[in-house]
């Protein structure tokens, strides 16, 4: 019977190579499952087994050494159709270099079949041992180190979550196993023990003598599905906005410095939004250690009537320090012209131009940042405090801000307004 899947009967491999029998069995399995070859995507690895492409009528994609299973996984991610059959073919070398890929494919139960042609050696590069070479495999390279136990790919794949696996000796007809693997709606792995007459064993009996036996497992699990997010634009082009007036006539550079857990970044963000509601330009960046939950937390804000380009702050016009960590981190960015607003707990505050307040005592750790920014707006004419109030009202924490705003107002009514 002529094959739909096999379009070139000539072997691209050395005479007697085990890969040819795998090629024939694969074609036969596809034919007998009556799968249209164009529903099959064969993903071939580097190595002799990667010479398979021209033999087949399916789609073929030939990638990098050791990555066929990962490339096949990417294809599986794109396809939500169990009738499409993705078959990755690797050697024992490719499976070893890409072992993490097959574990991940098994864990996710991607709908694909991985065939590993294990002939115990790297054929294309001259017969080096792989991580899948049996400890009793006799070979000229075998004596360069103590014999090692090979990985058991099938057990690894099983523990990682594969839903079909099978190890078999690659002689004769093994299409039934391939058919089970291909029909499995999930990740299947088939390890085929092979001869390599050029560098490895000549006869299948030699492989059998290593103790390999055919065995398989099945494991019911749903195939990988992406969680379907609701996708929407990240930018709302039609946001309704309340506008306020500001007569700021030159850029002002503000540093808000505190510690992790003090809401520094979110307070700065709300302040930036308030500035925008006054048609001002703003840049805002955060600075904190890699362990975001501890140490200093600093926000740098530039507010300007004009477009801002360079976003760094060499010397701040205003430093608001609400805890010691942040002050210590930023004190090199102040000079005599910097106006400093600080919590009264801050030590070593050497500045001729400073005011201190009991933010922490009055408002606690979480609300000192917002309170200090309100204070700044009372003391310095940047934009109306109402704009900041509005920005808090529009935030998702609106409820908790209503009380806070009242408290801040009464706190601020007691401080002296500037002339």
């Amino acid at each position, binding site marked *: 019977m002529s094959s739909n899947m096999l379009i070139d009967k000539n072997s691209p491999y050395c005479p007697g190579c085990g890969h040819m029998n795998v090629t024939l069995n694969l074609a036969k399995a596809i034919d007998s499952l009556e799968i249209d*070859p*164009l*529903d099959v*995507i064969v*993903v071939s690895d*580097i190595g002799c087994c*990667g*010479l398979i*492409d*021209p033999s087949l009528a*399916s*789609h*073929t*994609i*030939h*990638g*990098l050494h050791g*990555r066929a299973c*990962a*490339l096949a*996984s*990417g*294809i*599986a*991610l*794109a*396809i939500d159709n169990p009738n499409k059959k993705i078959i990755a073919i690797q050697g024992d070398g490719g499976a070893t270099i890409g072992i*993490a890929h097959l574990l*991940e494919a098994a864990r996710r139960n991607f709908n694909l079949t991985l065939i590993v042609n294990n002939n115990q050696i790297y054929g294309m590069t001259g017969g080096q041992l792989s991580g899948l070479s049996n400890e009793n495999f006799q070979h000229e390279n075998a004596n360069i180190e103590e014999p090692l136990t090979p990985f058991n790919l099938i057990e690894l794949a099983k523990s990682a979550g594969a839903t079909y696996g099978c190890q078999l000796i690659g002689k004769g007809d093994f299409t039934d196993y391939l058919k089970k693997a291909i029909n499995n709606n999930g990740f299947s792995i088939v390890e085929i023990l092979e001869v390599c007459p050029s560098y490895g064993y000549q006869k299948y009996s030699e492989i059998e003598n290593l103790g390999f036996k055919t065995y398989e497992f099945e494991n019911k699990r749903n195939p990988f599905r*992406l969680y*379907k*997010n609701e*996708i*929407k*634009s*990240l*930018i*709302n*082009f039609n*946001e309704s*906005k309340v506008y306020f007036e500001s007569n700021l006539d030159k850029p002002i550079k503000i540093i808000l410095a505190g510690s992790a857990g003090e809401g520094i970044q979110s307070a700065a*963000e709300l302040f*930036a*939004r308030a*500035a*925008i509601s006054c*048609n001002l330009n*703003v*840049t*805002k*960046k*955060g*600075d904190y250690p*890699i362990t975001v939950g501890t140490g200093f937390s600093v926000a740098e804000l530039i507010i300007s009537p004009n477009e*801002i*380009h*360079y*976003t*760094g702050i*060499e010397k701040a016009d205003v430093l608001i320090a609400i805890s010691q960590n942040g002050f210590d981190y930023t004190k090199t960015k102040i000079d005599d012209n910097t106006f400093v607003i600080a919590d009264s707990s801050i030590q070593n505050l050497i500045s001729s131009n400073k005011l201190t307040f009991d933010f922490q005592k009055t408002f606690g750790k979480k609300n000192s940042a917002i309170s200090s920014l309100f204070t700044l707006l009372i003391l310095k004419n940047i934009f109306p405090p109402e704009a900041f109030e509005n920005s808090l009202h529009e935030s998702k924490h609106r409820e908790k801000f209503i009380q806070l705003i009242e408290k801040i107002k009464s706190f601020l009514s007691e401080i002296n307004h500037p002339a």
Partner: protein
Amino acid sequence: MQTNYSLVDGSKLIVEALAKSGVDAFISYPITPANWINQYATKRFPIMTFAPDEITVAQWISGLSAAGKLPATATSFPGLALMIESINMAFMMELPMIIVLAQRLGPSTGSATVGAQGDLMLVNSLISGGFNIPVFSVSNIYDCWDITSKAVHTSVNLRTPVILLTSKEMIMTSYTIDLNKLPEINRAEFNYYTSDEVYIPYQADKNYVPPFLPLTNNKHQVRINSSTHDETGTIKKATKAAIGNTIRLHTKIQRRLNEYLLYEYDNQESDLLIVSYDISSEATRDAVKFLNENGIKVSTLFPKTIIPFSKELIEIIKSYKHIMIVEENLSGLLSKLIYGIETPENVTKVNKIGSMITPSEIIKEVEKCLQIC
């Protein structure tokens, strides 16, 4: 025109621009400073997941691309280093994909939260054998929108991976932008093979690019190949046809450069030209503004299609008596790209690592330079 101000960061604009340009799959491995991009991506693409390492990322996006999706990822130098072989694969296979490269301070792991511009020569030589993939560079927050879109369109039109070069300070800083100033973005459209004739996967049209068919189609056999191959997509040793196909990959990128060449040139008819890109462009803009206000004219050139570096830009540069190149790395990578090892005497390099180059540092150099000029 009425303004429509909003507070956005570069990461958000890049992700939104990718999606609007047709990117429908995003795979990444978490890495600072690309994490904001990765986080936004979780809410923006129909296919989005994290892979266990960057080699896997690059393979998965290649698989997605071969199957007809338009994928993107974002990473930084350590991740890019792992992806290089796979990006070479995608280049050889002619698979569109967008790699956003958020530069950070190196060498090695360096400092994840400190910006840098240290990867230009790496991305210039990413492809083995003397080939380029297009590299776009964003010079300000607005570029995060339209340069991103141009990168996507170029990737699809030329069937090649492209890199969008940016850096920590550009994508992790929030800015006021006027939404009304963002131009409309169109979806990039694939040039599909539509004929009934046998499909020859790497037979290019007159624009040096083969029409595309995904591995999922049921009409024509598709062969995609990363090894040296001829038009049929089957592996070949260095035959004339196969080498011809490989050289075409160079030709398509270079000959069609005029289709995707973008730069910003402010000719002030001065003796001095400042060339900069990425984050240092912004310090340059402020420095030049200050100099202009003090009666000093300085021209500026910001290449946004930075690789291949166009001859058109070289011609502009050559027309100046003195050139200053501003970039945040140790030894001047753009300068090396343009001039090689020996920097000509009329070129001043302004370089620094560890923090952004400031406008005042540039102004100081310009003043020094004007005394000599």
